[in-house]
């Protein structure tokens, strides 16, 4: 009984850490016809017969994308975490981690977008004739831009999607071009919670740090989303510490410095402990520009 429970817990933990923005095992399906005009359109193998008028978003990232491409007025419900823009926050919410096929179907949507399928929700909705697209977390920035295009296409505003992708790509490239050459890449520790879960360079967020010339100390643990030991973090002595757990877990530069042994860290002593907005750093929507600008300024100062 206990052993069974443990297996189950491990599976859930793996699942949840995976859905927090990890590289998708399935990759990006190639069946999307980006330049198709008019309906029906096919996005990631899902046929959308008509221009959607009742869109349900089960992902805060895709809610932001939908509003950015001008499909916001046609969104009728979102998941609990969709708090941006303010119009989205005012919509009815549902729990995307425990979604009910029946509950979503009762909203009578003609398009459902998800970033996480906890178990045949997409198949259940598809069986009811509701077009449902699951957008896995991308591996790098290009994958995010591609999702802007795909969301635009699915919502019947393909041109706006392509425009958003191009504009975001250009703005971020403009920020990255000013990243100075360093003798060696800066190392960092990005903290997801107060039990030292972290991210590797191979994650989506890690790819952004990578574009800013930084390498994660968690790569020594095989990348992904490992739980690091305190001893390893102290001995790795990263150049920067990024706190992705200020709002969730009450962590701050002061609480970090008070941890056993952490006051000896160079980043703590030099004040290079940076609080990173949790929503910005866990989504891959149009506010990526804000995230990249914030991180570039935190690392290289206002000159970037």
């Amino acid at each position: 009984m206990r052993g069974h429970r443990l297996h189950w817990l491990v599976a859930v933990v793996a699942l949840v850490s995976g859905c927090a923005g990890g590289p998708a095992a399935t990759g990006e399906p190639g069946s999307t016809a980006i330049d198709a005009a008019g309906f029906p359109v096919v996005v990631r193998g899902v046929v959308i017969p008509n221009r959607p008028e009742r869109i349900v978003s089960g992902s805060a990232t895709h809610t932001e994308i939908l509003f950015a491409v001008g499909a916001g007025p046609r969104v009728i419900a979102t998941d609990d975490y969709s708090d941006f823009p303010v119009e989205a926050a005012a919509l009815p919410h549902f729990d995307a981690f425990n979604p009910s096929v029946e509950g979503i179907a009762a909203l009578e949507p003609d398009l459902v977008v998800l970033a996480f399928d906890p178990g045949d929700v997409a198949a259940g909705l598809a069986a009811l004739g509701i077009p449902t697209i699951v957008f896995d977390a991308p591996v790098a920035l290009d994958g995010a831009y591609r999702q802007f295009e795909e969301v635009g296409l699915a919502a019947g505003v393909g041109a706006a999607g392509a425009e958003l992708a191009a504009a975001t790509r250009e703005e971020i490239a403009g920020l990255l071009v000013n990243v100075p050459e360093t003798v060696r890449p800066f190392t960092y520790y990005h903290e997801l919670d107060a039990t030292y879960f972290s991210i590797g360079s191979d994650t989506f967020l890690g790819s952004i740090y990578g574009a800013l010339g930084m390498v994660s100390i968690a790569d020594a643990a095989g990348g992904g989303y490992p739980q690091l030991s305190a001893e390893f973090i102290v001995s790795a002595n990263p150049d920067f510490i990024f706190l992705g757990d200020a709002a969730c877990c009450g962590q701050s530069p002061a609480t970090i410095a008070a941890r056993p042994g952490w006051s000896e860290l160079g980043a703590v002593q030099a004040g290079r402990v940076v609080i990173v907005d949790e929503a910005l750093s866990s989504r891959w929507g149009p506010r990526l520009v804000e995230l990249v600008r914030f991180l570039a300024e935190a690392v290289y100062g206002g000159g970037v």
Partner: protein
Amino acid sequence: MAVSGAVLLAAAAAAILIGPAALSPGAVFKEVLSHVPFVHIDSGLDPRQSAIVWELRVPRMVLAALVGATLSLAGGAYQGVFRNPLADPYLLGVAAGAGLGATVAIVSVGSGSALVPVAAFVGAIGAVAAAYSLGSAAGGQRSGATLILAGVAVAAFLTAAQTFVQQQNADSIREVYSWILGRLGTAGWSEVALMTPYAVVSVTVIMVHRRLLDVLSVGEEEARALGVRPERVRAAVVVAATVGTAGAVAVSGLIGFVGIVVPHVVRLMVGASYRAILPLSIVCGSAFLVIADLIARSALGPAEIPIGVITAFVGGPFFLVVLRTSRRGVM
């Protein structure tokens, strides 16, 4: 006893010497010595390295030993007082109560808060108090079985409440699981200081009662005929074991398997007398958890494995081997 003491010492030494940071054994040894009063010695380690030894490795090892000792002793005492081989320290709802307390604290103030251990402790004590009063009200004063059933009911109820709170707050799910699977990874001297008084009280009270547990093991009626009042002994041992377990759970989360398996392994080695089982459980429980924690933090390099996974994964097969060899010895 001497052998298990030597194993504990070896485990403790290994836990201090081995870790993701490569430090020379000599320097680590000197660093530990330099903290002994009146010993002035320079380990040659830089401040970061000495912090690794003295603020991370040593307190973590000490905490693992304290928690392992307390859980094993509490499990052995429960097995004696309820005359039930399946009893473990979480029998009367400690785990479920602590789980609910910790989950509520994590979702409302965050996993880094100092309130989490307090809430876990309160939940653990509250659960056992509820099980005890419900069991007594149902006529359990005279029989341990009613008490166990009350504990099962309370645990099921609290687990349901914990699951509900957790599902309503899916964004905290990783922190809740990392607590449920047990953790020593964030341990420092403050956790050791928090745990020590509970361990001392619990160990003292249970050790004082260990002869009475032997009397109880012949049966409640027989014990009564010998002048022992089973409900008295049971109350004292349950309170002591609960206080110790609640302290352990508060600082390290739910570390399973230690409390049920270590006393059994000891029993298979030294026989059925609690006078021998309980003290040996303290030593073997410490050693077991120190070794499990060493595996948890070194098996996957700089990444950690939840210690609850290690105790069950390593402890299960180990227990089966001991069971098998001891059976063969009997036959």
